[in-house]
């Protein structure tokens, strides 16, 4: 059996992933990764480390730790800030997987002599005709393939995903039976380094806010905004548009951002036509198999929690792609990734630049 380094976050998923490998007889060691230097009430690496240690002690495996805060800062966080500066809505967790977990962490594990790494992601991998496929996790509510579309063949081959065929309640059950203190630890939500803290306050520390006005698509001022970077397309909450504007019916939604004039463009009602687009272009294109798929059975997700929707490729080169959905999609946000699927197979993806009709 091989020597596996399991990325331990202190959460229940990686804990159960490690336990499964131990049960199967692998030579397992835990590896705790610290990617963010600050320790605060929002981001408590010390607590997470202790949780991971309790799990590893229970399993009788060593836990080592490694710090990639510098790499994370340079390669993930700077990109995150750049994207916000450009008025986009980035997804740093995707970049963290390709730049940190499946690059730096993988290399570190290999330096330790590990044959493979393992993570607590809800995905599966399968070898078909000399290539590996990345499959959705079996639990439809937890599938994390969206975050891993940037992996290549070598990275997937170097990794095991032991909980990909489990459902979350089952994972928690196992954790409880194994005596892990963290069996009922809350799932982490949102961007890891922001945690539960106020997003605006966090971003303000790094990017100066430029307040401006909120206008309707016809140019009528309906309010003021604190800075375009705080809003994302399709956002409804926190716009602060008072009564007396519009037709008095239906909530206000962010339709677009006018960076040049520093204006936030809004419209009323979830059905507002400006919220729906059929087409998009995206760049930084990556195919897991190394090759573009054909349009047969092609579906795409435009954000993590979106449904896969039928689409077809209209233009394609090595780095860019244009697609058209069969049905218009709600609030396609530049900076998010469009991720392609054929049934359960995650094919790859790209970062959205523009949506239109």
């Amino acid at each position, binding site marked *: 059996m091989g020597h596996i380094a399991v990325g331990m976050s202190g959460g229940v998923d990686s804990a159960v992933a490690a336990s499964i490998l131990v049960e199967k007889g692998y030579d397992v060691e835990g590896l705790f990764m*610290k990617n963010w230097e600050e320790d605060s009430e929002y981001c408590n690496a010390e607590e997470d*480390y202790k949780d991971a240690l309790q799990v590893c002690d229970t399993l009788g495996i060593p836990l080592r730790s*490694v710090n990639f805060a510098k790499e994370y800062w340079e390669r993930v966080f700077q990109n995150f800030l750049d994207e916000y500066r450009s008025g986009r809505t980035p997804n740093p967790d995707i970049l963290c997987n390709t730049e940190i977990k499946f690059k730096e962490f993988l290399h570190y594990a290999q330096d*330790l002599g590990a044959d493979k790494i393992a993570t607590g992601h809800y995905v599966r991998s399968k070898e078909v005709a000399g290539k590996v496929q990345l499959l959705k996790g079996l639990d439809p509510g937890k599938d994390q393939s969206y975050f891993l579309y940037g992996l290549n063949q070598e990275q997937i081959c170097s990794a095991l995903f032991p909980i990909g065929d489990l459902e979350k309640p089952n994972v928690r059950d196992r954790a409880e039976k194994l005596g892990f203190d963290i069996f009922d630890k809350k799932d982490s939500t949102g961007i890891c380094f922001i945690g539960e803290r106020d997003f605006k306050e966090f971003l303000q520390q790094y990017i100066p806010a430029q307040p401006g006005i909120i206008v309707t698509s016809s140019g009528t001022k309906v309010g003021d905004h604190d800075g375009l970077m705080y809003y994302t397309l399709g956002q409804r909450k926190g716009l602060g548009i008072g009564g007396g504007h519009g037709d008095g019916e239906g909530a206000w939604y962010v339709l677009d951002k006018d960076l040049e004039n520093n204006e936030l463009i809004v419209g009323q009602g979830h059905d507002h036509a400006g919220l729906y687009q059929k087409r998009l272009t995206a760049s930084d294109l990556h195919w897991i198999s190394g090759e573009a798929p054909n349009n047969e059975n092609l579906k795409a997700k435009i954000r993590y929690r979106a449904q896969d929707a039928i689409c077809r490729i209209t233009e394609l080169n090595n780095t860019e792609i244009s697609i058209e959905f069969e049905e218009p999609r709600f609030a396609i946000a530049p900076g998010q990734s469009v991720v392609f699927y054929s049934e359960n197979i995650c094919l790859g993806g790209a970062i959205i630049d523009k949506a239109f009709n």
Partner: protein
Amino acid sequence: MYYFDHSATTPVHSDVLDLMHSIQKDVYGNPSSVHSQGRKARLLIETARKQVAKAIGTIPNQIIFTSGGTEANNQVFWSLLNQNNIHVVSDTIEHPAILKVLSEMETHGIDYDLVTVNKNGRISIADIESEIQENTGLISIMLANNEMGTIQPIKEIVALAHENNILVHSDAVQCMGKMPVDVNDLGVDYLSLSAHKFYGPKGIGILYFKNKDSLSSLMIGGGQEKGLRAGTENIASIAGMGLAAELVTNQLDHHIKELASFEAHFKSELKTIFPNAIFNGDANNKLPGLVCVSFPGYRSDILMAKLDRANLAVSSGSACGSGNVKPSRVLSEMGVDDETNISTLRFSFGASNTSEQVDLLLFELKTILTD
């Protein structure tokens, strides 16, 4: 598992274990009781006090039992609060059980200055002299450092301090069994020891003091230990420490010779295996058997993990709890650059080792370093 981390802690000597076991089983009396069980317990404690006193060249009256080195250090420092001269001189490579106490005490009005060390980790008398102020009441310098084993010129420091009516404390937890620890010879006013560093149990140590008048108790209660450390005594551990102190000092020459020979063999072989190895510390003033080596081009966390996988226990000075592989503060203070710093491992040999084990360690290192 082969253990080369004796500076972190040592395995308990089997005679000590036997003694402690029989005490836990048979002697349950409270040493404060007047009946025979109490007398039995008291006798064990006083025997241990004599053993430890003899081991460090003093009389039993000048020793109290504490929970270990950390507590002993704390007691000396916190006692300063009741005194007039509240300035302390210490140094930058002390254990956190000194440095963190000082920084905490600053909020209580204590003032302190730290002297730096040279590239070998040695403190200069002149540096200490220049930090002495009118209200300096204490100089605290470790007898030898835990990371690279450099021994400090305590006798000279004591001479300087006493000329200026300043008391001297020395944290000597690393030293028992590796060098003579004679409080009269050293001349110190306070000295801290911890049993688990010399084949005794964990959770027990001593504070030596020349004069009890300047000490206050951290633990207030039943008045045990001359009123300087309240709480029912940990009889088995105290007796275990007494025996451990006796055993290790009776065998001191033998221990030193053995440790020196492990060290010499290890160093010379390592130089052949890995000519770039850098040996840190003061070659002329160091504890035997403690070898602090930098492996330029390697990372200590990876080397340590590989040795751990081969069932060989060593350690590194870099703190690495929750993903904070940070350079060792001690090595940084010696001017070691960060890259070299995080490539450094500490091998500390001890009585549980054999020369075959040292060879096995060398073999594994060779495999790892030439992989």
